[in-house]
């Protein structure tokens, strides 16, 4: 069956329209899920949940600069007043004292439900004697001054016991009644957004609200030149997305324009240009469609990789147009297509290896590039010839190819110098093998250095929690979760009193389980009992029992009140703390117990031993992050090796000659060595995308080796083939090279590796082509 050009075009158009419809309905995202593991372990799941939904991911730190301390404080108060009313924010704190009073009053009111010190012994004669004598001793200390007015109603010091367990860590500085930076030059606020950390739109809306209200408040308080500094995970997400969005457009445009310029220069015909871009457009669309259908969402970075795909996909039409000029379609099919096909297959091996990555970003890149390249090749092979039957012949490249052949002959001189250079590179890499790699996941993060520094400065100034250490417990319901938290808490208390950790937070501090509230209530004696016990206990005390009437009343109230529930916490900042640490999940409840390190770092093994039997999972976030990255790196190494092996196996099967295989592979391996050594010398710390780049040098570069091999076998190099390779190489280098301009490390690494690598692969293949081929 023979299709006419018109029908072919129509079919192609229909396919493209369908593809466009799918792309139109695709969900695009530029959030950090690109980096989060596709198949997380239990520990990694906690990490992922924290990054996406955790309270820390919803915190924004704000600093106000300019004017006098009092003006900044006024601005801070005004801003807080305005933001607090907005539904976008769960809490806006600036260190004003009002909220602390509310919390303290709540703790005092419910001290007999909350105090961990309460047990049946606490209110016996002996228990009272000890507790009250401790309180009196405390009055001798400066800490006791605050508690003096409370003595008649709280002689056993329950509020003190309660406050002691709370975060006594470093509080932010204050100046003029609000939080200030350490140097006192900036007013500080800590804001918790309602939007989840993973909701980049919500974060952007919240950040815009802060900025616009800040501008308003600055005007209103007469501090128009005040400056706002803002940081936090939300800002990172918003900025990264903006960077990626911006770059997707910019990089694709640069790459397209440069490639179009090259093609126009070579083809000298708009019709040929349009036809030549056909496989590219098809490939780019097919890539997005494949990703969208398989993964549901398409990462911005994946689209950004399109710039490279354009450069790679355009090669096939270049080969076709240039190489078919003399032999026509049939000649090209028999003489060149098998070589092009083998090149396509090696590229597919390279990209295909990425498909198996547990790093979702990487597997998406793999699928995108694979389907793009495959589609471009198929369109070139089956559709382009039909459509270009009537196209004008392109200009004659024979003279150009002949001069290239002369150059290639001369290049043989460089064989030994290149081998020496490559050996030097190998030696350098071997000697410096420990310093080559960047061991941090942050190497992949698209957050700018300046943003990171601002974040560190603000974080230090406001003493914001970083929640590095977490114990996590899952339970069926809220009560079970709280009971589990109390049990684990009791085990952690041992570590606190041994000085191994400084402390920990628990939702059960402000919302004890109903069971322990009841146990505490049952420990409270009746009025008459308490009165007579106090008489005995205080017989020799400087505190007379008759001064403790408020104590008797409060105790009586506490004994008769119902258990505290989450609702009673409303209006206090303790409610936020509980909500942050006690989470309802789709399949039950989770409790988070953040641990605070003391002087020395926390010993994970020790904490795990201490928590044994409590069902709590202890996680060091930093270790998990590093482990995650190492897993990715390790996996990327395996995948690269597998990809390399697949390429070698494919070539071996096709070439059926160890000599020919070696001739194709040698220039590629030398190119990889030279590129990596050069990158190292230029100060690039390698990360896993450089590694992937190395695989792609082999996958993409083998195309050139195969053409040279083809020519060697025939004992003759067709000048036009040589010209087509140079042009194809140029477009590939432009495509990947454009990525090197990217600020997104994932794209940049692939660009700086594959861009120069592709050029070197062609150059070295030419240098090592067997003598006599290019005569």
């Amino acid at each position, binding site marked *: 069956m023979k299709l006419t050009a018109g029908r072919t075009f129509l079919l192609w158009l229909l396919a493209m329209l369908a593809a466009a419809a799918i792309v139109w309905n695709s969900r695009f995202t530029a959030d950090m899920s690109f980096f989060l593991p596709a198949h997380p372990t239990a520990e990694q799941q906690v990490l992922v949940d924290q990054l996406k939904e955790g309270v820390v991911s919803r915190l924004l730190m704000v600093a106000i600069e300019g004017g006098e301390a009092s003006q900044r404080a006024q601005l801070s108060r005004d801003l807080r007043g305005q933001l607090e009313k907005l539904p976008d924010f769960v809490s806006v704190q600036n260190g004003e004292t009002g909220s602390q009073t509310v919390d303290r009053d709540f703790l005092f009111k419910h001290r007999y439900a909350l105090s961990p010190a309460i047990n049946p012994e606490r209110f016996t004669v002996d228990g009272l004697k000890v507790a009250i004598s401790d309180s*009196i*001793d*405390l*009055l001798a*200390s400066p800490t006791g001054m605050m508690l003096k007015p409370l*003595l008649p109603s709280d002689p056993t010091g329950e509020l003190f016991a309660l406050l002691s367990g709370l975060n006594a860590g470093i509080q932010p500085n204050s100046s003029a009644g609000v939080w200030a930076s350490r140097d006192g030059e900036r007013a500080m606020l800590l804001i918790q957004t309602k939007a989840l950390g993973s909701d980049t739109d919500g974060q952007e809306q919240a950040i815009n609200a802060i900025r616009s209200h800040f501008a308003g408040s600055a005007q209103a308080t007469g501090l128009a030149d005040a400056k706002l500094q803002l940081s936090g995970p939300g800002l990172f997400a918003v900025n990264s997305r903006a960077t990626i969005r911006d770059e997707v457009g910019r990089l694709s445009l640069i790459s397209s324009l440069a490639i179009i310029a090259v093609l126009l220069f070579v083809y000298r015909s708009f019709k040929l240009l349009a036809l030549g871009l056909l496989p590219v457009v098809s490939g780019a669309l097919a890539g997005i469609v494949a990703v969208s259908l398989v993964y549901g969402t398409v990462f911005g970075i994946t689209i950004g990789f399109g710039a490279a795909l354009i450069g790679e996909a355009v090669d096939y039409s270049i080969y076709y147009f240039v190489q078919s000029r003399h032999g026509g379609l049939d000649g090209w099919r028999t003489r060149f297509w098998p070589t092009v096909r083998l090149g396509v297959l090696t590229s597919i091996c390279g990209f295909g290896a990425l498909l198996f990555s547990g790093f979702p970003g990487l597997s998406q890149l793999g699928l995108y590039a694979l389907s793009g390249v495959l589609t471009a090749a198929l369109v070139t092979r089956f559709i382009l010839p039909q459509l270009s039957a009537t196209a004008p012949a392109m200009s004659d490249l024979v003279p150009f190819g002949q001069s290239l052949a002369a150059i290639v002959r001369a290049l043989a001189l460089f064989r030994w110098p290149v081998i020496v250079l490559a050996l030097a590179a190998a030696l350098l890499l071997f000697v410096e093998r420990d310093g080559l790699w960047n061991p941090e996941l942050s190497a992949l993060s698209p957050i700018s250095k300046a943003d990171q520094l601002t974040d560190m400065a603000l974080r230090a100034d406001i003493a914001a929690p970083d929640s590095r250490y977490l114990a996590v417990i899952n339970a069926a319901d809220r009560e079970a979760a709280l009971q589990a938290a109390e049990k684990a808490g009791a085990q952690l208390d041992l570590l606190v*009193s041994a000085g191994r950790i400084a402390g920990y937070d628990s939702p059960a501090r402000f919302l004890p389980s109903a069971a322990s509230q009841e146990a505490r209530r049952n420990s409270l004696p009746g009025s008459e009992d308490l009165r007579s016990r106090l008489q005995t206990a205080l017989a020799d005390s*400087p*505190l007379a029992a008759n001064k403790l009437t408020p104590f008797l009343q409060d105790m009586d109230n506490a004994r008769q009140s119902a258990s505290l529930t989450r609702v009673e916490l409303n209006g206090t900042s303790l409610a936020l703390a509980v909500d942050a640490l006690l989470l309802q999940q789709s399949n039950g409840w989770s409790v988070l117990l953040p641990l605070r390190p003391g002087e020395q770092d926390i010993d994970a093994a020790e904490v795990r031993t201490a928590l044994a039997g409590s069902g709590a999972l202890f996680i060091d976030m930093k270790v998990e992050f590093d482990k995650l990255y190492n897993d990715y790196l390790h996996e990327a190494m395996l995948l690269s090796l597998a990809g390399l092996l697949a390429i070698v196996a494919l070539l071996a099967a096709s070439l059926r000659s160890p000599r020919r295989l070696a001739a194709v592979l040698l220039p590629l391996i030398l190119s990889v060595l030279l590129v990596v050594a050069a990158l190292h010398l230029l100060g690039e710390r390698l990360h896993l995308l450089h590694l992937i780049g190395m695989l792609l040098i082999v996958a993409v570069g083998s195309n050139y080796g195969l053409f040279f091999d083809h020519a060697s076998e025939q004992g003759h190099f067709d000048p036009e083939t040589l010209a087509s390779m140079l042009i194809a190489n140029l477009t590939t280098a432009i495509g990947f090279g454009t990525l090197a301009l990217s600020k997104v490390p994932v794209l940049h690494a692939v660009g700086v590796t594959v861009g120069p690598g592709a050029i070197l692969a062609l150059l070295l293949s030419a240098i090592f082509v067997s003598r006599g081929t290019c005569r």
Partner: protein
Amino acid sequence: MIKRLVAALLLCLAMPAFADFDVAQLMNDLAKHKGGKAKFVEKKTIAMLDKPVISSGEMTYSAPDRLEKRTLLPKPELLTLDKDLLSIEREKQKLTINLNNQPEALAFIDSIRGTLSGNRAALEKNYGLYLSGNSNKWVLTLLPSDQKIAALVLRIVVSGSKGQVRSIEYLQADGDRSLLTIEPLDVK
């Protein structure tokens, strides 16, 4: 206002009588004292309690801004003041307060620190200074000039001899009082 007026009157009466010894001289003597170790006994008289609460221990002062107060009885406690960081260690708990965040506490601390180091400017920031006695036996009375501080402390009376402070008495606004007596341990 009236309180300050009375104080000013007192001052007018007191000054001529002891014209040979003034605040500047006292501050000079105090500033010469470079520190040392001392025993202390602190007696707090609290209305609610039938008996005063007594604590004792050792304190070490190194001029101009480091003070360590180690209470041994009734419960061990270590209070250290290093520049503007006040930390209290008690039963494995450590509490650190940056005094810049607590203007009232800072004023309170400045009354001790300013006296020990002879820093007149720091004292006069929050208090009116009224001196009586002579170089060998002087009594310096500090009256808070800020309403917020006056709401906590009515009067601080420091007495001593030459550059050595011997006692500090606080009279709190609620009528409770504390008397800190200092007995130097080593003589330079």
